[in-house]
């Protein structure tokens, strides 16, 4: 379970460039819930994920994961429990190392690293099986350098790496935005399946309103560092993209300015 309480984050405080990225944001995500997050550019989506992952620390407020206060825990310590994917498919994998080495490194997440051999032969069949489940033909390429894979393959591998040692929380930051539409659909379907199978508590940022409603159990809309909209259950199930947009305009009391048009309806 993830509990955020009264998070505040301001960039460049006290200067002309002061920007309040997150303003008094509180949120509770129960165990196993899959939350999709939408919002225009600068709404604070990525900052929110950075505060949760430990890439940034908040000015005030707290982050609790399964009851433990992790607000100021360094990123690499928190990463024991948190898996994260970025928009850039190159960010989540080491290009000059093999698939097997990448997976070995990720598989040891959260455990104490020792002087035991790695990659070890006893994991090979397990990794092969996991790669087969991606259905991308990667199971026969364990000894291939990851840099030789396509962006979509690398992002699917990153997804596998983030979940191969099941995390308590999975953070997805527009992880399909840089992929072509067909590959993006495939990676999204994989995401949905892996999250469901392992019942992983998940926060997924997306620019695509349709997939924000189609995937997961709950949808949040962020605007100027606040949660503007929080729908789940029946209401969400019957919601269309148009209804979502309407609710958004109504709630924000503003017209659709340019950056909000970046939210794609498709």
């Amino acid at each position, binding site marked *: 379970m993830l509990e955020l309480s009264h998070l505040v984050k301001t960039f460049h405080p006290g200067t002309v460039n002061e920007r309040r990225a997150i303003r008094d944001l509180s949120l509770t995500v129960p165990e196993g819930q899959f939350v999709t997050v939408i919002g225009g550019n600068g709404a604070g989506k990525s900052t929110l994920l950075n505060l949760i*992952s430990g890439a940034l620390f908040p000015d005030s407020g707290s982050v609790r994961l399964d009851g433990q206060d992790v607000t100021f825990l360094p*990123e*690499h*310590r*928190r*990463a*024991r429990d*948190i*898996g*994260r994917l970025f928009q850039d498919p190159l*960010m*989540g*994998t*080491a*290009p*000059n*190392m093999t698939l097997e*080495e*990448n997976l*070995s*490194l*990720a598989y*040891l*997440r*959260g455990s104490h*690293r*020792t*002087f*035991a*051999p*790695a*990659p070890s032969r006893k994991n090979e069949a397990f990794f092969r099986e996991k790669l087969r489940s991606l259905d991308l033909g990667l199971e026969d390429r364990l*000894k291939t350098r990851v840099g030789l894979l396509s962006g979509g393959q690398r992002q699917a591998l990153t997804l596998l*790496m*983030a979940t191969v040692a099941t995390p308590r929380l999975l953070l997805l930051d527009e992880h399909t935005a840089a992929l072509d539409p067909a590959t993006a659909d495939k990676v999204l379907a994989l995401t949905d399946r892996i999250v469901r199978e392992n019942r992983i508590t998940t926060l997924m940022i997306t620019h695509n309103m349709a997939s924000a409603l189609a995937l997961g159990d709950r949808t949040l809309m962020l605007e100027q560092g606040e949660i503007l909209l929080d729908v789940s259950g029946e209401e969400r199930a019957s919601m269309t993209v148009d209804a979502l947009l309407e609710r958004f305009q109504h709630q924000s009391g503003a017209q659709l300015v340019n950056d909000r048009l970046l939210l794609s309806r498709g």
Partner: protein
Amino acid sequence: MTAVALRGAIELGLLYALVTAGLFLSYRILNLADLTVDGSFTLGGAASIMVALTGHPWLGILAGVLTGALAGLVTAVMQTKLGIQPILAGILTMTGLYSINLRVMDGRASVNVIGKVTVFTPFQNALGDLGKLVLIALVGAVALGLLVLFLCTQVGLAVRATGDNERMVRSSSVNVDLMKTLGLVLANALVGLSGALLAQYQQSCDVGMGTGVVVIGLASLIIGEAVFGTLVYFCTKRQGVLTGAGCAVVGAVLYRLIIALVIQYNNAPALRFLHITASDMKLLSALIVVVAISYPALRSAAALRRKRARTQKQAKGGGS
């Protein structure tokens, strides 16, 4: 080349292979240009000589390894905790070490152990002329073997990945700063070991012993990769950690052979006008590194120029 010169070149090559292996770890694997090496090499030599003078040559070698490791630790702390740029951190340690090395050597610019027992003495007594070579090969094999084994462990895997994609390593719950520190400490321990052995090998240590060692090491590594690395890749289509260690050894030995050949033939008609001496080898090393590292940039610039020329020609031909 005479047998003596050949053996000398191989001995020196294997000694310097430890420096090259250290640079393989810091420069190739961690992607850090670590200039500590010039200082930690001399520090290892100075510590080794001073302890050997007290009659404990093996303790001297150990002192060389430990002081080298300590120098690496200082650079690593500057880089990871104090926010000093990696290159500058190395330069600062190297500069500071110059003064420290003089203090270690009791303020003398040069110290020798001629007539004293070194680690080589028992081997020379037992095996004669081959004694030195056997000891160097043994120590080198053990040190490089340990390095390769380490890089194939879970911790070693994390160190290797740190140089490849830091962000991914951090999100795999690895302390990146710790991995960099570990890498720099090990790399400089190897360099310290090299300096320590070399000092006892030549029975003396002088304060300028380490000048340019980092460039010599890089040049050796590049030569090794070009020759041995390419060969291994051609045969197996793979390049692992073991290949890297092999490149360090082959490159360092080839480098010494090149020097020996250049010095032997510096009176040949084609080379005589250059008046090449041993001291010119640092310039040659620097040139090798410049050419090897700039090669990809020069190649793509040339390709772009060709492409532009071709399109312009086509535009002219197709126009009117």
